[in-house]
């Protein structure tokens, strides 16, 4: 979409700005790279000069006039070698320094990206697709800094073009003019061709993305596809998007091949034309044969680099596109703010208060409205309500993963927002429904790198109902879980995440449907043991299952973002018809079934 707005000139302007941003952080390596590039360009010009000199002083005198070559051979060979060595030196310097610049920049950007994201609010994070954020940190950073590697080369080629025209002009103004016109034509064709094919490549990439999406979806849904016997339909769909890639590839490559053919032949055409002009100038006595050979040799040497310069434009445009997505992350400035309240000693539960709490994800309407909640220290509270009633939102606010839009939440009478950075997690542990596990051992996943004794570890595992399956793992608590813990079932992952919270003996524990994938009986067992363990915690649990709800001291019934009832489970069954209906749905159903059966 941006290809329409971008023009070669805007790419050049924005590109230079982007490059400057990178280069100013590592000026020394950039300076070295450019020095290397200049050395490289100088050596190429010198090599043509040497060939001209060899033609004039060795080849023609010896082979045409019969001069004795004895004293001439060694200097000629050494001269050619010396130029080659300095060219090689230039290349090493240029490429190595450019690599340093590029790799260091990537490292910097990735570190800064992570640091930046860690400062942003979860409300920002939740608006992003995690897959997109990963792509930004991985491929977009690579792409965004992609231009840094060929940059010194491009600088070298530019120097080479200037040097070449200058030298040819010095040899003979007419040849110089011819070379200048020729090179300008080559550059124009090259830039135009690269530009057009670049936009077409973007489409190929989009089509490839489509292929990948269809493949992922089809394979993820393979069970469904096969059980419905729809393999052919899905395969045809895949074939269709694959052919789309094919057609676009043919289109872009055909265009590219045409431009490429012209770009490759132009230097040859130039050489032939310059030979004609050169012959006339030799006839007029203005140039020597050696000088003409120098000019021709230079143009021959230029043919290859000039073919590549168009790609720098690709790199530049590609970098800009990649960087735009990186910059979007850096531009997000919804930072979390902190105060200076410190956490208290662990050991006793914390009272929790919410006052006139309001929250909305967007303008479309409040998720929570004017919510009042007061919990004595040590209470277990169940939050009950239908899907979409705001239960999860409430628990996110209580853990300060989000901040309320209105009102405030207090722990020990202190506004959650007044806690200093990293202090609140010492008081509050939040366990989500989707348990995230790190590529680490079971123990590492529970301690998260903090110091805990073996006893504490095992106790947490036992409380979370995880002891049984952990002991069956090959290395018990030291078992490596692998990426995202995929080897474990959902319920097992949830229990490890629960142990992670329990080992910290938080003063406030929030379980947001954190045992949903655990068998009902195991869930009840966990909740019971939590209560009997005399855990020094105030507990807030979002739950569906009646048995879990029954274990709480108090219940709040939430619907449409408001607390409709708050009290003991038994009282609420009497006083709140909505609550009774919701909680007793199972029983009603079972009773009805029993009646039907009899």
């Amino acid at each position, binding site marked *: 979409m941006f290809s329409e707005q971008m023009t070669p000139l805007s790419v050049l302007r924005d590109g230079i700005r982007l490059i400057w941003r990178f280069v100013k952080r590592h000026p020394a390596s950039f300076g070295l790279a450019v020095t290397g590039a200049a050395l490289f360009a100088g050596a190429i010009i010198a090599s043509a000069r040497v*060939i001209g000199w060899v033609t004039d002083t060795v080849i*023609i005198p*010896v*082979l045409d006039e019969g001069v004795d*070559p004895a004293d001439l051979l060694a200097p*000629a060979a050494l001269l*050619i070698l010396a130029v*080659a060595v300095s060219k*090689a030196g230039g*290349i*090493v310097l240029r490429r190595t320094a450019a690599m340093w610049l590029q*790799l260091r920049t990537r*490292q910097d950007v990735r570190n800064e990206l*992570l640091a930046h994201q860690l400062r942003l609010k*979860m409300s920002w994070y939740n608006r992003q697709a995690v897959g997109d954020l*990963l792509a930004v940190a*991985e491929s977009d950073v690579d792409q965004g800094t992609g231009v840094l590697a060929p940059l010194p080369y491009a600088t070298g080629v530019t120097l080479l073009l200037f040097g070449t025209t200058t030298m040819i002009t010095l040899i003979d103004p007419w040849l110089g003019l011819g070379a200048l016109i020729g090179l300008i034509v080559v550059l124009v064709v090259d830039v135009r061709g690269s530009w057009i094919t670049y936009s077409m490549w973007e489409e190929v990439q989009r089509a*490839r993305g489509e292929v990948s999406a269809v493949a992922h*979806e*089809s*394979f993820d*849904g393979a*069970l*469904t*596809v*096969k*059980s*419905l016997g729809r393999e052919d339909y899905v*395969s045809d769909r*895949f074939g269709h998007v*694959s052919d789309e890639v094919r057609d676009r*590839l*043919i289109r872009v490559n*055909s265009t590219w*091949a045409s431009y490429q053919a012209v770009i490759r*032949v132009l230097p*040859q055409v130039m050489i032939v034309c310059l*030979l*004609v002009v050169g*012959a006339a100038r030799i*006839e007029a006595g203005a140039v020597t044969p050696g000088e003409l050979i120098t000019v021709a040799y230079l143009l*021959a040497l230029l043919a*290859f680099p000039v073919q590549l310069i168009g790609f720098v434009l690709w790199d530049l445009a590609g970098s800009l596109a990649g960087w735009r997505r990186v910059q979007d992350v850096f531009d997000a400035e919804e930072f979390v703010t902190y105060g200076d309240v410190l956490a208290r000693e662990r050991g006793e539960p914390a009272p929790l208060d919410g006052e006139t709490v309001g929250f909305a994800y967007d303008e479309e309407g409040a998720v929570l409205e004017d919510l009042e909640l007061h919990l004595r220290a040590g209470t277990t509270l169940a939050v009950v309500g*239908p899907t979409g009633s705001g239960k999860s939102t409430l628990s996110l606010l209580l853990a300060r993963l989000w901040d309320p839009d209105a009102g405030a939440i207090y722990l020990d009478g202190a506004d959650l927002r007044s806690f200093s950075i990293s202090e609140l997690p010492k008081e509050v542990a*939040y366990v989500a429904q989707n348990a*995230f596990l*790190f590529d680490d051992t079971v123990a590492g996943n529970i301690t998260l*790198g903090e110091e805990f004794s073996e006893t504490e570890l095992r106790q947490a595992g036992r409380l979370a109902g995880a002891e049984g399956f952990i002991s069956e793992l090959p290395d018990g608590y030291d078992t490596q879980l692998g990426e995202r813990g995929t080897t474990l079932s959902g319920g097992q992952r949830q229990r490890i995440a629960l142990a992670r919270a329990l080992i910290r003996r938080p003063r406030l524990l929030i379980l947001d449907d954190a045992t*949903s*994938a655990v068998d*009902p009986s195991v869930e009840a067992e966990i909740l019971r043991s939590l209560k009997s363990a005399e855990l020094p915690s105030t507990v807030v649990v979002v739950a*569906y299952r*009646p*048995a879990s709800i*029954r274990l709480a001291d108090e219940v709040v019934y939430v619907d449409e973002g408001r607390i409709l009832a708050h009290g003991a489970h038994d009282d609420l069954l009497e006083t709140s018809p909505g609550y009774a209906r919701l*909680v007793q*749905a199972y029983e009603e*159903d*079972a009773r009805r*079934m029993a009646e039907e059966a009899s």
Partner: protein
Amino acid sequence: MSGEQATGRVLGRAMRLAPALRKGLRLTLLMAMAGQAITVVTPVVIQMIIDDEILAPEGIVMRDVLWKAALALATLAVGVVVGRAAVLRLIRSSATGLSDLRTMTFRHLLKRSVLHVEADRRGDLVSRVTSDVTTLQEFMEWGGVGMVIAGSQVILALGVMIYYEWRLALVALVGVILYLLLMRWFQRVLARNYDTVRVEVGRSLGVLSESISALPVVRSYGIEGSTKEKVADALDKRFWIEFRTARLGNILFSSAEVFAGALTAGIVVGGILIGTSQGMTAGTLVAFLFLTNLLIEPLQIVVETLEFAQSAASGLRRILGVLDSEVDMPDPEEPDHLRPGGLSARMHQVRFAYPNGNEVLTDITVDIPVGSRVAVVGETGSGKTTFAKLLVRLLDPSRGSVSIGGVDARRIPLEELRSRVAFVPQEGFLFDDTVGANVRYGQPEASDAEIWTAFHELGLGPWVESLPRGLETQAGERGGNLSSGERQLVALVRAWIGSPDLLVLDEATSAVDPALDVALRHAIERLTEGRTSVTIAHRMATAEGSDEVLVFDQGKLVERGRHRDLLSRGGVYAALYADWAAGTKTV
């Protein structure tokens, strides 16, 4: 060299599989060679102008110079046109052939049970039809085309050299061979380094992406500092290994320039020596210098492409590996057909073990009569789900047999089997399409009206009406716009609309909002009415309402019978039931 031969064989097989790759290849190569003639025109014309004009005793005749230049330009024009045509042909055939190969691979993969058995390998399999094919495509477009062009340039330049002066050409040839050997050696040295680079790059990206995905956990546990440190360490390690390898590569490859210089110097010295003793014109030697220059660049391309070819070939090998793998559930060679009407199911001494030897089911024998409602219960890992997959032939038993309607399941054509037997998996998978289109996966010909009716018949009319755009509502990626309970609702309707004669259903375990849960249960009840059904029950109410309960424990069928009888027996089932009862009753 055996590695390259193997590469050749792999390419040969690919060409047989996707004939589009091979079509007209010989003509294309000839055309490419002819197109490359343009590169040797300049040296030849330089030689002619030096020897016949500049150094000629009669001096320069401009008319002749112009004629020669005109001839050269004409050759260039022809060369460009032919060369371009060759490239176009090459591009067209490779793009077509590879797209065919890709679709073929996809089709084959979809037939394999590994997709749903080893879910963790899915990502890897996706890359067979994405990145592996893309590598091949890029190789064909850049490497393949470049190699053809560069190769013909080398051959032509050497040819012209031999025509001018074979002894000096020999010097160049020896140089070229030495250069190739040197480059191959460098490449091997580097390849070893690249392997470690790849590992380190993968590791650092793993750490980085894990940290980003874990952001909510990092925040709620206040471990920002250690997370940043972990990432910074991994990135720094990666930097050094990448940088050191790049530096080594630069040093090795820049030595090519020194070698090119040495070769040029060798040609000058050799040319002078041969010239003075055997007689050679100055123009010829100058032409040789230009021709030598023509040898070096393409050789670099050829060498780089060889490396590229290795990675393309290993991608191709992986693809062929997929195509070679046997379809684990082939259609029967001597098919048997199902009779119309209700279907019974039967398992006889069935054992199932995964390829890694992990035994999931042991010696299961069970009869499910037509029209009965069977519930399967057992703890997680007891083998219930595998039992269900065997019944619908998503897996084949390692031993024993499964028969449907009295016919061995392996002898029923898959299409027929799928149209008569429906399976509703636990995770109702939805495609990124509308709700209606998702239902249509169960019955492609179903009209909108029929889909509406299906929802109503299952008592889900109010639900579908509550959707913002009804049947046209987008389900989102993997059905993400709907809750897990709602996804299963759609999956139920999808099964219903195919009006199967045997239904196998895996109830969702995830706790859902009770109102939705009740709707689900009613829908399931309607769905199983009047047909043979096997339900993996996670709610005991399902078991209570069934005709027979099968109780699995550690891969064995330990109890079977009616709910009431099993309960009074006081075994595994009674214990499960007690657990459940404690977990759901409200008083």
